[in-house]
């Protein structure tokens, strides 16, 4: 039955690294470089060049990265990076992603940080540049000419008169034995041959032909199947587990109970499904949940951890003396990652070691978590990333990896755990609910003189990191505490402006002790945030808090524009000073053929279909990407249905490494943002989560009439590399909300903009 050797067999048999085998995502796997690492090495030294690269005798390059591809294109673009800096072709490079035995520890693949991490002047890029300089130096010596007499193409170093030597001849199969040189010269974007081009994603053919190996497809010899039995209500605990209730199920291997963690293991997946369904568990109820209908008020009343991000200390007085004051409150619900595939992982825990095949974004932190859960020494745990379905943040990837480890340890056999859709919806760490109060004081001439923002966001748990396995449900059920909110009053701001969550609106000057780090010009400013305890686990969901905050800032900006009868583009530009955000606003307006006038649109019909346009803009995390989005919508005023007809995005992420990859991120981002804006919301009753499948949690299927999406990419070759995965999505709710207002005069201040909410706002 099994055609290919598994990783595990291969590793055992060879005692050496490496790669590829059943996971080979490339169409034509080539001979794999024999890497210089043994498989049980517990520490990969990022200072050493050999930790990042190996060149085989045939000239193929194996590169090792700690940033993985969950579908966002990192496999392709990092392959391009290595090929570019080493002067080889893309198909000469094999990239090995995220494996604690063989790749450097680059933390978590998250927060639009992968390109900044590996493409600026350090890490993978710097290693490849170091290798190129070393190889050309070796070639100069071998060919007896100076380095400046040599050229490199496809891994062949040549003199002007045609003498040449290949990388394989120079170093093939041997260590460099060099440190990564921080001064190694990077190629200039003007010299790029591979970067900057729309190289097709390297996994494309395998994906489309159904041959790509996801973690769901990992098979390990002797592997059996596990399912978990989660508490039916939030906070319920185990009173009794009647193991006899499932003894009749054929193939059952074990019922596993550890504190409040329960799972079953069986020979076949279907047997595990039946055992999990039929297992009789008596649960002690948890405490009742705060009612959803009053939840945003509830949040305001909770004890909190407070941070004052900026404070000009004249806000109260300025508001009192302002010619006009505007106030509004925006709210955003909990939302799910809702990955397409319910999460899955495979664990092989033996008496003294463990191997986990995991879709985690964080192999090294997960290794620590597995070590804590299994009490195995961390050096004995290996976590290998295998792609799951797109995760968009902390979905159930980490928790299912812990599930698999616990179940495998209980039976000392390799166990594959597949969560059900219900498990996935109740097991993940949701994107946080937020309440955001806005207040602005206007001068006599209608400009904003003062802006005051106070925000509340919920928190419980989060990424497990290196020491908090209780931050996800499995760790908590097994007896580890989640991180809770450490209560603290806000100190006055000091140091540099830190706007990672985009809590500070783009229009503020962001001045702390006389130094102004914001992209805007408003000098009367105060931003205070409160983190409050959450009844549910929370964690990063694509553009965490940045999206919620931006929804509130950009819609409120639109309310101010309307109140002074100003054009939303011109009025925004009036309050911005950072050239890069100004440029994206202008570029989006131009590409959209922006109809410059105040909102709402004059003469819009009061019944039937109404159309309108809205804009929103962003300096992502303050300085990690710039974007502006124009949305054009049609609102059916009878039904409250909103249809987006067109999105126009202007986007600046610094030097563009792969324009097709950036466009794909933008297109998917704005549509995912549209789905979140129009329908997505976690729901609950007094005891438990009630949005547990694709009928009770809204998402937009392929049936929807898609908007036209136009992307304007602003290339900045001289800039450092910035993030591109989370900018466009951050703007969708705001741009759509502003377009609805333009069409109808109705302001939506609560996400999602369901038909009922739209109708209520119209009434």
């Amino acid at each position, binding site marked *: *039955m099994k*055609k290919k050797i598994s990783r595990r067999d291969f590793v055992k048999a060879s005692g050496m690294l490496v790669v590829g085998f059943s996971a080979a995502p490339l*169409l034509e796997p080539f001979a794999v470089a024999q890497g210089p690492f043994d498989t049980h090495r517990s520490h990969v030294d990022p200072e050493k060049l050999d930790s990042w690269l190996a060149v085989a005798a045939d000239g193929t390059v194996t590169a090792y990265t700690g940033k993985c591809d*969950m*579908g*966002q*294109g990192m496999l392709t673009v990092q392959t391009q990076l290595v090929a570019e800096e080493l002067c080889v072709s893309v198909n000469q490079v094999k990239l090995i992603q995220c494996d604690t035995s063989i790749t450097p520890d680059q933390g978590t693949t998250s927060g639009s940080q992968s390109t900044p991490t590996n493409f600026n002047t350090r890490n993978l890029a710097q290693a490849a540049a170091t290798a190129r300089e070393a190889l050309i130096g070796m070639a100069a010596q071998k060919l007896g000419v100076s380095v400046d007499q040599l050229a490199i193409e496809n891994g062949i170093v040549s003199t002007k008169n045609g003498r040449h030597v290949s990388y394989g001849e120079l170093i093939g199969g041997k260590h460099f034995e060099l440190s990564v040189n921080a001064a190694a010269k990077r190629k200039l974007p003007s010299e790029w041959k591979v970067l900057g081009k729309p190289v*097709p994603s390297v*996994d*494309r*053919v*395998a*994906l*489309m*032909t*159904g*041959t*790509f*190996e*996801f973690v*769901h*497809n990992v*098979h390990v010899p002797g592997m059996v*199947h596990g399912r978990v039995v989660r508490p039916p209500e939030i906070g319920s605990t185990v009173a009794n587990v009647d193991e006899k209730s499932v003894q009749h199920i*054929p193939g059952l291997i074990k019922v596993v109970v550890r504190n409040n963690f329960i799972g079953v293991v069986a020979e*076949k*997946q*279907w047997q595990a499904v039946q055992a999990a369904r039929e297992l009789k568990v008596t649960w002690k109820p948890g405490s009742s949940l705060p009612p959803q209908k009053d939840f945003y008020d509830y949040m305001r009343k909770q004890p909190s951890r407070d941070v004052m991000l900026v404070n000009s200390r004249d806000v109260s007085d300025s508001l009192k003396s302002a010619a006009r004051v505007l106030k509004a409150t925006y709210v955003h619900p909990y939302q799910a990652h*809702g*990955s*397409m*595939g*319910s999460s*899955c992982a495979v664990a092989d825990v033996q008496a003294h070691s463990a191997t986990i095949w995991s879709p985690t974004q964080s192999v090294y932190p997960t290794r620590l978590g597995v070590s804590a859960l299994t009490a195995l020494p961390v050096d004995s745990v290996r976590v290998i990333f295998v*792609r*799951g*379905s*797109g995760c*968009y943040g902390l979905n159930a990837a980490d928790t299912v990896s812990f599930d698999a480890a616990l179940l495998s340890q209980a039976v000392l056999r390799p166990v594959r755990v*597949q969560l*059900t*859709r219900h498990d996935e919806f109740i097991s993940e760490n949701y994107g946080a609910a937020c309440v955001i109060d806005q207040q602005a004081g206007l001068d006599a001439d209608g400009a904003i003189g003062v802006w005051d923002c106070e925000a509340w966001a919920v928190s419980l748990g989060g990424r497990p990191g290196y020491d908090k396995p209780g931050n996800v449900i499995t760790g908590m059920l097994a007896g580890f505490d989640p991180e809770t909110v450490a209560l603290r009053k806000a100190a006055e701001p000091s140091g540099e402006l830190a706007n990672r969550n985009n809590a500070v609106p783009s229009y503020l000057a962001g001045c702390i002790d006389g130094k102004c780090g914001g992209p805007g010009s408003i000098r009367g400013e105060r931003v205070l945030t409160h983190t409050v305890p959450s009844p549910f686990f929370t964690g990063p969901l694509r553009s965490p808090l940045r999206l919620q905050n931006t929804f509130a800032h950009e819609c409120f900006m639109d309310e101010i524009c309307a109140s002074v009868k100003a054009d939303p583009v011109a009025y925004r530009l009036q309050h911005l000073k950072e050239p890069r955000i100004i440029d994206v606003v202008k570029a989006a307006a131009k590409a959209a053929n922006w109809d410059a006038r105040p909102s709402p649109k004059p003469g819009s019909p009061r019944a039937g279909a109404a159309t309108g346009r809205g804009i929103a803009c962003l300096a992502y995390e303050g300085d990690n990407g710039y974007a502006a989005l124009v949305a054009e919508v049609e609102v059916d005023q009878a039904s409250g249905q909103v249809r987006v007809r067109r999105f126009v995005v202007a986007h600046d992420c610094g030097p563009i490494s792969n324009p*097709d990859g950036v466009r*794909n991120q933008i*297109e*998917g*981002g704005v*549509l*995912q943002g*549209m*789905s979140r804006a129009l329908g997505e919301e976690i729901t609950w009753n007094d005891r438990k989560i009630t949005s547990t*499948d*694709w009928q009770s949690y809204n*998402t*937009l*299927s*392929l*049936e*929807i009439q*898609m908007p036209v999406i136009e992307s304007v990419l602003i290339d900045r070759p001289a800039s450092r590399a910035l993030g591109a995965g989370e900018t466009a999505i951050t703007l969708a709710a705001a741009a759509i909300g502003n377009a609805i207002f333009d069409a109808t005069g109705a302001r939506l201040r609560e996400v999602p903009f369901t038909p009922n909410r739209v109708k209520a706002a119209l009434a």
Partner: protein
Amino acid sequence: MAAISLKVNGHVHAVDVDPQTPLLYVLSDDLHLRGPKFGCGLAQCGACTVMIQGEPVRSCVMPVSAVKEREVIPLEGLGTPEKPHPIQQAFIDEGAAQCGFCLSGVILSAKAVLDRNPKASEEQIREGLSSVLCRCFAHTRMMRAIKRYQGRHA
């Protein structure tokens, strides 16, 4: 458990499973196929889609015993990496995926619509994809790929 004979991609396989086992588990666990995948187990998302007699079927809710002698064609049965089916080629050309987990549902459901009606309107195509999800929202590229295939081959 019972001995069940299952025809997949032209090959007849004998498997020893509970006849009530969902077809998906047999395809992925016993036959090690990678195309059909577990998305929801509820026939709500399409990730597990296979073709049976030209119809897209949700293999996560179909007992293996219900297949009987009919042939099952999963995504990897359409074409190969070396010679993709024209609809797969259209998706390759358009780069119509991000993570790609949903592709069995998208490609096979669209193909079924166009097999039945090569001149299907966009609305009819979308109707055929009404309970097919892609959570990366590669929707626009996917629709372009489907139309590219329709324009050339359907």
